[in-house]
Every structure is written in structure tokens, then in C-alpha cells.
């Protein structure tokens, strides 16, 4: 009788599983798995790039991208802002971390492991506090407690509370307990925790300093509950980051910038944290190996800054124009799937990456030369391209020039028909576009995030799959930038010893990065080996005094298009200064006249709106909901 009414689940886990050792370890795996819902998610990626000086919307942009541009194409609000992507993901993971921390010890899990949960709880709160301002520490069962209470209300803590009650203590615990070596490929270590602690101190120091009087929410005095001032935190950031540089453990700088981002060299020792993916298992990759539908946990961010290059056509005949798609969609790092949702403004090419000769980072960031690959699609023979010249597979078909050519480009396409509106220079078999001719529809692709597969065989592979590469979140190189930024803001410096010895000044630290940027072992767009060391020229070009603007430009050269930019500009409060206008050519093929567009970046935008989904699900009065929202969006 009573047997009939008894329940014993056999195919699912209930929350009680979290109190077992296996459950706690599964919770730890989730710490890493949740990164995929943030990094590589293109709509979120968009919020970190579009609207900064690194990106604007592209020709095929939809509202998700246009509103982020702040140029009258829609308004950022609780519904349109795509920062919602991290809200639920972070809080769910924070709760998992709460569970691991709460039950780990009694389940017999070592503190070096549970400290990973401390790290990720701080990681998520750090992400949230930078994006939204103060966020709740109590999910329903008390501050930082594993939630077993279904509550449909929420109270936000202030920014200093989130930092001092959670982020700092958690990261300090992680720094103290984590090992120097990774437990598994890609798991976190003490230096990773140091990098985050240094970044958190740096960011909080800026918040206390508040140079441009950007509002915070919920309202809080710019005083530290722990009694320190901005200066103290800048100094801490400097001390911790230089300490990590001196004791890098398993991490270090790659010989060249190209090596850092080369797909064949993924998970190299410069990458400290990444959201992993793999082509070896569709199940554990978490997304299809053949066709991505454009949603988390797919790594599809790279599609956004990829223009529709497969439209490039050449001719199979030299007597009349018989179109053949000469650069086909392929799962190769320079190519990949084109969504044309975002585009780089011209300033990226004329200012940020003004030096394309000494500095290898331009060549290691963009696809500027599109090489013919029609042979991979089973089309044999040669084709005819610009100036009716014969081209073979592998030859450049379209090139974005490094600088303005001395001879004017013929964009008329009256004879040789670039159907993507590219132009012709005398004697060149490739179509060309000059830096000032870059438009929302045709622009250099983002090579860094392009796909890399080893299963293409002799064909084009699976270009419509999401990238199976890990999405890089943080690099060893950032320690130099963090220390330099702290130094610029007044941290007293001491010389740095070890592998990366330097005088410890902002200039000294930055020059380590710039010297490396001058080293070449491969000409990416020329697709050939190139051994060159322009380190001396790079260092010579470094200004005597590093300003915060110079540091930000250097960060953009190092991390262009990787999702750092919005945080950098917001932390330093330089967003409105650096991104208020940009220029780019229009939406149509053949548009080569730059237009300058002005952005409106009021101070309230420095905090993203609380997502509508949160407000909708809260069962509280309208007044409370309104007060929950950030000012400017209420």
C-alpha cells in the first residue's frame, strides 16, 4: 500500500546530491561550464564591443547591435540591452558556488578545490558589479548562502558591499589556497586568482576615485567600509600583479603575438582562463560540430565581426565576366561564418593600429588578405580577377591595404566587376580597398576569433559550426597592463625581477608587451614565414610618459575584439572621451566615403539596465521594481 506512494528517482539528481563528494566535484565542473554561457555568446560579446571605439554595428546588424551603438538606432533599456545574458548565468553559478563552499568541507573536499568556487563566486560578482552596479548577496537564504528558499523578491547590495563582503575575501582565499599548477587542463591556479584580485582592486580603486563623477547605484558613499582609500587599492593592485609577474608559475608570454592567438596554439601558456570547447566531442563541446544555431553555449562571437566575404567573385573566363565564388566559406581561421553584425570603425586602422609594419599585432588581429580557395569547393583551374589577371588557388583575391596608396583606386567597377564593391590598382591581380574605404559591409575580418579545425580534410570543413576553439578570457599579459595602470594612477613602483625584469614603471611594464609585439615569426596575411625583431623600434616609439589614454590604446592593440573594451572604458571612465564619435563608410557595396557619426553617451549608461526578465519575475510592487532598476532606465 504505502509502497505505491513512495518515490525513488532513478534518472535524475535532486539537490541533495550536492551534499556528496561527487556532487561537490560536479558543482566545480559547473564553474567552468558556465563560462561558455558568457564567453562566446555573441549578443553579450556585442555589449562589450559595440559602442566602444573598437566596434560599431555592421550592415546586417539587427536591433541587438544597433541599440548598443547609441547613435539613435534604438534605446538601450531593460529589454533591448543584451547584458541580460550574464544575469541569470552568473546568479545560478553563484548559487552553485555557495553550495560547493557550504557543503565542500563536510563532504570531504579539499579547500584547494573549494577555493575554485570562491574564485568563481568572486568572478561572477565582479562581472555583475562592473556591469550593473550593486547586486544582491542574499539569493534567498542569507548573504552568500546556498539558496533553498524560493523567493520572488530581491534586494540589491551596494557596490562597496559586493567588493568588500564577497569579491575581496573570496579572491584572497583563492590566492591563499589554490595551487601553482592546474589540476586539469585549464583549471585555475594561484596566479589566476592574483590577476583577478589585482583587477578587482584596480577597478574598485577607480570606483572610489570616480574622476569623472559617474553615478553609482544603489546609492553609496565613495568611502571604503574597510577604511582604505583609492590610493591604497591602486597600490594593492600593483603589488599583487607584479608579484604574479615575478612568480608566473606555469604561465608566461608567448614568443610572438601571432602565437598567442593562433588556433593551432590554443591553450598556450599565456592564456590564464578560457571557456573551453573541443572538436573531439560534440557532447562535451556543448554545441554542434556541424551547424551552430547562434545561441549559448555555442562559441559564435567570431561571426559578428566577419563580413560576407563568400560573396567575393572572380571570373572563370577572361573574355567575359562569368562569376565564380573564389573565396568560399571555410572553417579556417581567416574565414569562418559571416554574420556582418558588427564592423570596425576606420579609426581602428588609422589610429589604433597606425603602425602595421613594426607592430605585429595588426597582422595578428585581422584578416586583411582574402586568398582564393575555390579549389577546396571542387572548382578546378585558375580564375580571372582584377585587371583580368589570372589567379591560382591561394592567390590574394581581395586585399585591405595597410595605407592609402599613391595611385587612386579605381572603384568604378566598370570593367572588372568586384561584386563587393572593391577597387582595382594598375598591375595588381587582387581587388583592393584602402583604409578610408572600409564600410559597414566590407571590412577586414577578425582573424583572432576565427575557427580552427583539424578535420577539414581537403574541403571547406564545417564553417557553419560554432568555433570549437576555447574562448580566451584572460591572459598573462594583462598583469603588465594592470600593474602599469595602477602605476599611472599613482601606485609607487619597484623594479620587477625574474623572467620579465623591468624597472617596474608603467613604461617599463608596457615595454615588455611592446617589445614582444615587435617580434615576428609568421606573416599571417602573407601566409608565409617571416622572422623579424622590431622590438627596439617598438620601444623607441613608446612615449616617455604613459598616460591612461595611451595605456587604453595599447590595451586595444593587444586585446582588440576580445570583449575587454567596454570594461576598460567604463573602469577608467574614459568611455565618453574615447568613443563619442567614429567614422566609417556606408551600408552598401561600393560605399567608400567615410561618414563621421556622433554617439551620445550619458553617464547613466555606465551601468547597464537590470534585465526585464528579472523585473518580470519579481513578485513585488511596481514601486519596488522601479527602484530596483538603475537610474536612467527606470
Amino acid at each position, binding site marked *: 500500500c504505502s509502497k*505505491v*506512494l513512495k*518515490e*525513488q*528517482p532513478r*534518472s*535524475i*539528481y*535532486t*539537490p*541533495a*546530491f550536492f551534499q556528496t563528494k561527487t*556532487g561537490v566535484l*560536479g558543482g*566545480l*565542473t*559547473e564553474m*567552468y*561550464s*558556465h563560462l*561558455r554561457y558568457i564567453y562566446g555568446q555573441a549578443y553579450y560579446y556585442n555589449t562589450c564591443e559595440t559602442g566602444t571605439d573598437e566596434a560599431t554595428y555592421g550592415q546586417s546588424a*539587427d*536591433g541587438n547591435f*544597433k541599440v548598443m551603438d547609441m547613435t539613435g538606432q*534604438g*534605446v538601450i533599456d531593460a529589454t*533591448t540591452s543584451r547584458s541580460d545574458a550574464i544575469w*541569470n548565468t552568473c*546568479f*545560478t553559478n553563484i*548559487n*552553485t558556488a555557495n553550495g560547493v563552499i557550504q557543503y565542500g568541507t563536510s563532504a570531504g573536499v579539499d579547500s584547494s578545490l573549494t577555493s575554485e568556487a570562491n574564485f568563481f563566486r568572486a568572478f561572477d560578482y565582479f562581472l555583475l558589479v562592473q556591469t550593473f552596479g550593486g*547586486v*544582491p548577496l542574499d539569493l534567498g537564504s542569507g548573504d552568500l548562502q546556498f539558496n533553498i528558499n*524560493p*523567493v*520572488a523578491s530581491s534586494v540589491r547590495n551596494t557596490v562597496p558591499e559586493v567588493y568588500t563582503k564577497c569579491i575581496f575575501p573570496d579572491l584572497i582565499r583563492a590566492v591563499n589556497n589554490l595551487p601553482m599548477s592546474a589540476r586539469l*587542463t585549464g*583549471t585555475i591556479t594561484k596566479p589566476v586568482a592574483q590577476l583577478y584580485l589585482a583587477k578587482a582592486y584596480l577597478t574598485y580603486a577607480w570606483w572610489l576615485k570616480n574622476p569623472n563623477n559617474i553615478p553609482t547605484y544603489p546609492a553609496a558613499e565613495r568611502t571604503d567600509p574597510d577604511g582604505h582609500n583609492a590610493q591604497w587599492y591602486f597600490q594593492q593592485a600593483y603589488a599583487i600583479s607584479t608579484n604574479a609577474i615575478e612568480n608566473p608559475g606555469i604561465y608566461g608570454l608567448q614568443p610572438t603575438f601571432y602565437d598567442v592567438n593562433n588556433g593551432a596554439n590554443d*591553450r598556450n601558456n599565456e592564456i590564464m582562463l578560457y571557456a*573551453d*570547447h573541443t572538436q*573531439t566531442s*560534440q*557532447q*562535451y563541446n556543448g554545441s554542434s*560540430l*556541424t551547424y551552430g544555431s547562434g545561441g549559448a*553555449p555555442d562559441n559564435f562571437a567570431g561571426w559578428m565581426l566577419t563580413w560576407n566575404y*563568400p*560573396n567575393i567573385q572572380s571570373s572563370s573566363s577572361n573574355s567575359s565576366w562569368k*562569376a565564380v565564388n573564389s573565396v568560399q566559406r571555410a572553417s579556417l581561421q581567416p574565414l569562418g561564418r559571416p554574420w556582418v553584425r558588427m564592423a570596425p570603425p576606420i579609426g581602428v586602422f588609422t589610429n589604433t593600429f597606425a603602425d602595421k609594419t613594426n607592430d605585429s599585432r595588426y597582422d595578428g588581429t585581422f584578416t586583411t588578405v582574402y586568398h582564393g580557395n575555390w579549389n577546396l569547393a571542387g572548382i578546378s583551374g585558375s580564375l580571372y580577377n582584377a585587371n583580368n589577371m589570372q589567379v591560382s588557388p591561394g592567390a590574394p583575391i581581395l586585399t585591405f591595404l595597410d595605407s592609402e596608396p599613391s595611385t587612386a583606386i579605381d572603384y568604378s*567597377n566598370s570593367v572588372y566587376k568586384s561584386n563587393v564593391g572593391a577597387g582595382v590598382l594598375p598591375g595588381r591581380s587582387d581587388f583592393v580597398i584602402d583604409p578610408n574605404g572600409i564600410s559597414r559591409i566590407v571590412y577586414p575580418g577578425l582573424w583572432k576569433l576565427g575557427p580552427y579545425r583539424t578535420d577539414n580534410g581537403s*574541403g*571547406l570543413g564545417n*564553417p*557553419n559550426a560554432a568555433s570549437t576553439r576555447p574562448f580566451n578570457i584572460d591572459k598573462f599579459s594583462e598583469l603588465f597592463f594592470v600593474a602599469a595602470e595602477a602605476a599611472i594612477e599613482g601606485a609607487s613602483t619597484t623594479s620587477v625581477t625574474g623572467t620579465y625584469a623591468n624597472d617596474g614603471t608603467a613604461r617599463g611594464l608596457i615595454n615588455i608587451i611592446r617589445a614582444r609585439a615587435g617580434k615576428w615569426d609568421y606573416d599571417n596575411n602573407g601566409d608565409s614565414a617571416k622572422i623579424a625583431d622590431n622590438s627596439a623600434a617598438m620601444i623607441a616609439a613608446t612615449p616617455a610618459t604613459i598616460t591612461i589614454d595611451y595605456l587604453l590604446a595599447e590595451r586595444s592593440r593587444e586585446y582588440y575584439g576580445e570583449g575587454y573594451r567596454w570594461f576598460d572604458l567604463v573602469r577608467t571612465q574614459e568611455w565618453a572621451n574615447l568613443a563619442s564619435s567614429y567614422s566609417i563608410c556606408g551600408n*552598401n557595396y561600393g560605399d567608400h566615403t567615410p561618414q563621421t557619426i556622433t554617439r551620445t553617451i550619458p553617464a547613466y549608461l555606465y551601468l547597464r539596465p537590470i534585465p526585464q526578465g528579472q523585473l518580470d519575475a519579481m*513578485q*513585488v510592487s511596481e514601486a519596488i521594481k522601479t527602484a530596483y532598476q538603475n537610474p536612467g532606465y527606470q
Partner: protein
Amino acid sequence: QDVSAVLHGHVTDSTGKPIGSASVLNEKTGKGTFTDPSGDFSVNVKNGQVLQFSYVGYQTKKVMYSGQTNLSVVLTQNGNGKLNDVIVIGYGTQRKEAVTGSVASISGDKMREVPSANVSEALQGRLPGVSISQTSSQPGATMQIRIRGTRSLTANNDPFIVLDGIPFPGSIGDIDVNNIKSIDVLKDASATAIYGSRGANGVILITTYKGVPGQEPKVSINSYYGVKKVLAQFPMMNGPQLAALRLAAGKFISQNGTITLGADESDSTNTNWQNLLYRDGLVTNEDVSVSAGTKNGSYNFGASYYKDQAVIPTQNYQRFSLHGSVDQGIGKYVRVGFTTNSNYNITEGSQVGLYGALSNSPLASPYNADGSIKYFITTTQDQSWVYTKKVVDSLKNQWLSENKGYASYNSAFGEIKIPGVEGLKYRVNVGLNINIGNSGSFTGEGVNSTNPTAPSTASIGNSVGTDWTIENLLTYDRSFKKSRLNVVGLYSSEQNRYHSTYISGIGIPQDALQYYNIGTASQEIDVLPANQNYWQRGLLSWMGRAMYSYDDRYFISATVRSDGASVLAPGHQWHTYPAISAGWNLTNESFMKSLTFINFLKLRAGFGQTSNQAVSPYSTLGLLSSNPYNFGDATYANGYYVSTLPNPNLGWEYSKTWNYGLDFTILNSRLNGTVEYYLTKTNGLLQSVGLPGTSGVGSYVANVGNTQNKGIELSLNGTIIQNLNGWTWDAGVNLSFNRNKITALASGVTSDQGDGWFVGYPINSIYDYQKIGLWKNAADSASGYLNTLQPGGNVGEIRVKYTGGFNADGTPVRAINSDDRQIMNADPNFTGGFNTRITYKGFDFTAVGIFQNGGILISTLYGGGSYLNLLTGRRNNVNVDYWTPTNTNAKYPKPGGQMSGDNPEYASTMSYFNGSFLKISTMTLGYDFAKDKWLKKATISQLRLYFTVQNPFVLFSPYYKETGLDPETNSYGDQNQAVSSYQHRMLTQGFNTPTTRNYLLGINLTF
């Protein structure tokens, strides 16, 4: 002289309708038989003996045998015109005149006037208060049944099905329509209370044919064959129309101002991709059954085959069924029997979707210069794999999806009359069911991919469901003078168990292996934790019911039931609820005698409670979900997080229903009808409550909120012409008005926007911006403050309702935002059905129709979810009347305007249409040759040929008028779209298999 003869005969009512199950008794010998459903009987009789013909509600007639052959007997109704039907109620039958609850019935014959694949389809529009909606247009799909509206938010709203007295846990599609004798639907709580927690959503009692004791073997053969033609293609643009749209949108424009074309497009091409895909479908049904009586017993068995082949290549459904029943008396006190229904069904072809055929550019040709089919086509921004009927047919061994189901539903009973106590019986029912599913799919290398070397994939799923039920019943049934008493006591227990596994693999080395050996997968074998399922649920019940009638004037029925369910939290598992109802037959009162135009009049009232435990097992315990992860290329692990919180207080969701009814028969029994009013209040709704993101947990299951349904039902059946020069014309109509609303949500809040629920509004509400037109021209854009309300918006775009305030100068204070969303009721004002039947000599003509007034039809084809109304010219577009500077009165916005995602801003507002329609679902013309004399001699009692057209007409439908499409839904809210955009519960029209018009030719033969 004294030789016993076998007399054949036929019993009808005064209108000539055969009376089945009438008793034929030889007064001398005391032996007898019953008429079959065609009214026919055979009985042994000697000259001079008297035969007594009787049937409930009719005057008994006596005929002396004097050597007649083919005796025709006409029974006339009792003087006061009592209703003659016997209604199946839970755990017994009842004369219709004594029914006090709300029960709607239809005979199998009447139901089969609509040739259909399954019971749900056959019942559409036939019974008041029973609303049946299409959820898929694919072959083999069953429909959604709602009795008196929707009451649960997330718990099950499906009615409880009882097959031959035993709970039926399978799909209603597993029941062979040909074998059904009658269907009785219990609608109110006083009728369903006997089923307790199973009955909250109404109960459908299905009775299959049994033989009749003493009946000679009778064979019935039913067969039809038909072709299916696409009713209307989806209204996509042709080549010139798409070219014009692309130009107007300005998103794909070349340097010289003309439209850009993909490598496979040309502006002189005009491909109709739907023509290349569709074929003619076919549908056929063959059924044979034999029934007979034995001494003190009867049996029935039969077999049937049904096949429905869709207009989409390879898509089809086949079902093989076997059924049998035996009922045998043993001695004076014991009766035993069993019923078995088994079927094997195969569904194929779900891999072929329609999106490609609809979205492919008509400017692109599928053919290479040499006439062969291209592998894929490249358009301006997309590539798509090319599939046509030819391609799909040629790939039938490389691209397939199959579902095979085997189900066996069996029940056995034993009944003992307790000696010494007249009217007391003990009965035990045992039900044993098994349901086995096996699904497999295979996609060969490069198939359905633009990459010719995309690896092959295969998957296989297996499931087994088993159920057992034991019911112990004690029945006491007696008449005392004018009183009649029936008491039933029940103790029952049941358990359902389900287990399924699903495995997929990548890189099957050889096409011939298909999905049969996933172990061979060379690249990867995936066994995702989320795809393996096991559950078990149990229910214990006690029930008692007493029915009492006095003098055929006063009726009362009272029930108490107590249920315990395993799926609820310990301490909250048991619930007890009562029901009571009463009826008053005014016709039998002396003061009514003078009102001769009233043949029958009864008033009924009832109140009862029922409950719902239809949440998934383990809902009280909470849930961990898992996410896979790789640490590098070689280390794999699963992460876990809490997705559902436990709820140790989860208890019953229960409904209280009040029901008032009036049954009448007037005008010389030519018109009868029923009017009912009901009110159902459901409390403690079981639902998954979405939590705010800051909870760190997605949801929990709780008893939260209340709903209410109230409504009026009306049904009328009349004989308009009664045997006038051989013509008879019957017609029936039913109407249902249901008003549903949520009366409370969690802890006093008035809205749950995440789930789309609002207090005071129906469960089926749409929460969205409300389109009020377009920003027609510059002048109205300026006066309407387009720039303020919709920054970045342009003239010609969708204008939605603004609900914010205005500044002193008349300008709006803010831009349009989420606060401007409106709650829109999607439920219809009323629904109903009608049927009519005209007979003349051997000819019969029937038509059955359904209708709906009001409500919102969500056609995702026109909204944002389908990606078929992008209005950019990127892919093919539904052919809509869009805004241009010279066409400012258009319904649809300016192409290429402000975008939200890939769609026009506020695209969802384009998917709402007025849901009204009237549809003739079938028309049938038949001729019965058995009226001819020579066939009677051949002992053939029926030989009927008929021709049926299904879906002949759609009328009064604004949607049909604009689009030419069937206005019935064909998908759940999250299906058949490129991006799912509605809650699953909302029925929508998406790009599912097209509706067809079917032409059937059939035969019914009985001998």
C-alpha cells in the same frame, strides 16, 4: 408444424432508424436475443409462439409468429417520450433520463460520419463543451482535447480516458475508431468525482463493440481509400515579388543600385520550391470485425489497418490494430471476461522540414546547367542545402526518421453475484498495459548540410511504459416499488512506470547501418544524461457512490472519493472530496400532462470537487541539471547546478464545479436539446513558478494561484423532415461559451510576466505590444511623435500602442518600452459544431462542420519567429502587402526598416489574426445497396458505398481570406518556427505539413 424456425427480422423506431440492443424474447421458451447495431436479429421460434420486443424508453410490443419471413417491427416511444439511450457513466450505465451530472454522448456510428484517424479528430465539433484543437498537421498526430476550458497552468489539462472501464494511459491515437460503440464524456464534477483525482479535466469513456448473447456471427468490413491534395500552398513570394521586395528593402543593393544576387540567383529565375517538394498524399483504412453471441456470453474480435501518407515526401503514418473481447457467464452467479486492444504503429518522415522550401529564394534555381540538382544554393547571405521531392525520395535510405510504437491494453474482470442478497455483486477489474516505443533516425554524410563531408549522424531511442490497475467493486442495485437504488464501493490501486533511453552517434561508417548499430559510430557516441528517463507513479483510491431514483421523477446521486498520490509531498498525498447531484423529471408530474408539446423535460443541478495530481513524479524533490564540459581535448566532465528547488509542501490542486442543466424533448420528439451552465473554480494550482534570476535557481513547483472557468453549453438536435415521400432530414448544432480567467497568482501578485499570466485574464493570453497600424506618412509620424516614441524608427514602420504620459506640450514623456505591452485575450468568444444528415431511400448525405467566433490566431509565419517575414529580401518572404512611399495604406511595414534581431521591429505584432472561422470538415454522400431486395436475401444487412470530401470549405475566416491558409492551428507555441517565440501551451500556426483537402471512396459491408 411444430418445427422450430429461424426468424430474421429488423427493429426500427418510428422514424425508420434501426434500434440496436433491443431485447427480443420468446415468451414461451424464455430464450431470446438482442438486435445488433443495425437493428437486425435472428431468433428461434415456432408457429404460435409470441415474441416480445422491448427497449428502454419504448413501448413493449408483442408479435405472434405465424410463418413470417423478415419480420419488421416498429417500436414507438413511451407516451411521454422518454429518452431512450443508455449512457455509460463511471462504473456502470444509466438510463439517460436518470442522469443527473453533465454527460455528453455520441455513438460510434455517428462519430464515424467523419472518417478519421483517431478519436480526437472524430470528436472535433461534435460535443458541446469538448474543444478539440489541432496541434500538428503531420500524419498520426492526435489533437488537444479540452473539456470546459483550461484550468491548470502547468499541470496536465488532458481529460482522463477510460477504455471499457479501465483507465487508459496510452495515446488516444492508439484506439481504433472502427471498434468504438459509443463515447460518453463526463464533464462536471458530480459525474467525474467517481474518478476523483483523475477526473478533474473531464473523463472520456470509450466503449468498444461486444457481441450480444445469442447473436449469430456477424461480419463487418469497412474500408476507404483517398487522395490528399494540398489545400493551399504557403503564400510565399515568387521571383519578381522577391526581387521587388529586395529592392524596396535596400539591404542587398549593388554599386549601381540594382539588387545584389547570390551566386545561384538570377533575376529571371522564378522557382516555386513548394511545387518541387509536395506530392499527393493518400489515406486508407481497412477494418474487419466479427461478433457473435454464445450461450450466456458473447465475443468480438477484429483487425484494422490505417495508413496516412502526407504531401511531404517520406512522411507517413501506419497503424495495425487488433482487438478482441469475450464476456462469458458461468453458471448463475459468475461472469468473467476480458478485452484486449493492441496496435503497432509506424511514423516516418519527420526529418523533412518545410523551412527550406519556404525560405529558399525563388530567384535561385535548384538546377545546374546540365539539369542535375545543385547540392546547395548560395543566396545573398545564406547557403542552403537543396532538397526537392526527387532528392528526398532518392535519399530515402540515407535520410530517415522513424518512430515505431507497440501498445497493448488489456483488461480482465470477474464478477460474482452474491447469493442470498439480491442485487449485490462483487467485481474485480484488472488492467495491464504495455507501451513500447522505438525511434531511430539517420542522416547520411553531407545530407541536409552545405558541407558534403559533414559526418553522418544517427540516433536511437527506446522506451517502455507499463501500467497496472486493480479495482475492487461492490455493487448493490435494486428496485423497490417506485424506488431504485444503486450503490457502488470501490478500492483501487494503480501504478505507472516509464523508462526511456536515447543514444546518438556521429560518423556511421556505412550508410546501410543506418541507426541500427550506433556502436559503430567512428567519431562519437553520445548518451546525454538529460535524455535518459525513468519514473514511476502510483495512486490509491477509495470511493463510494449512491444513486437513488423515485418514481422516475426524482433522482439523486452522491459520491465520496479519497485519493493518495505518490507524486505529492509526504503528508500532503491524500485528499478526500465529495460530489452530489440531483435531477427532477418534470414530464412525469401530473401538472405537465396537459403540455403535450413537451415530450420530456428534466432539470439537473450538481456540485462536486475533483482534483489534479498531474505533475511529474519527483516534482517535490527539486532537480539538478547538468552541463557538459571539456578540460582540453581529452578530459570530459559534467557540471551540476540546481535548476528546480524542492517543495516539501506540494499538495493537491483541486476544482469545485457547480453545474445546472436542462434537458428537453419537444414537438412530438422531433427536437431535443440540452442547455447547461457551469462554474469551475480551481485552487492550489500546481505550477512551476519561475524565480527571478537573483534566486540563483530557475524555478520550483508549487501550489500557487487559482483559476476559474464558467460557461454555457447548448446542443440541439432535430428532425426537420421526417420520412416525407422518403426524405428525412436531421440536423444538430452545438455551441460552447467558456470564459476562463486566472483569479489569483502567487502571494497576491497580479501578474507573472515571465510566464505570461495575469490575474483577471485568461490563461491563453498574449503579452505583447499592440499594433495600431503603421506610421503611414511623414505627417502622421510627426504628429504622432515617431522620433520620441521610437528612436531610430522610420515612416512606414509598425506603430504600437503607447501607454505612457505626455508633457504639457503634448509630447510623450518617454520612448515606447516594455511597459507598453498589452494583455490580449486569445480565447474565442464561442466555438461549436454542426452536422446534418439527409436520407432518401438508400441515399444518405451528411455534412459536419466546426466554427469559432473571435479569439486570436497566432500565425508565426507572419511574425518574427518563422524568419519568413523578415521583409529584407534576404530569404523568401510571405507575400504580404507592404508599405512603400506609394502604398501607404499597406498592412505590413516598410521593408528594411528598423530591426529587432533579424526581423522588423515589433515583428511579433504581425502574427495576430482574428481567429473566427467556419469550416465544413467533411461532406459525405452514400448509398446503401442493402435496401435492395436481392441483398437482403443474401443476408447482407448493409452494403454502403460512399464518397467523402474532407476540408471542402472554409468560410468567414479573415485569416483564410488574406492568406488562403487553413485557419486551424497546427503547432504548439514553440514549434515549427525558426526561433520559438511563444509558450508551448499557446497553439499557433507555423510551417508544419500543409493542410490537405481529401477525397475518399469507402465501403461498409455487414453480413
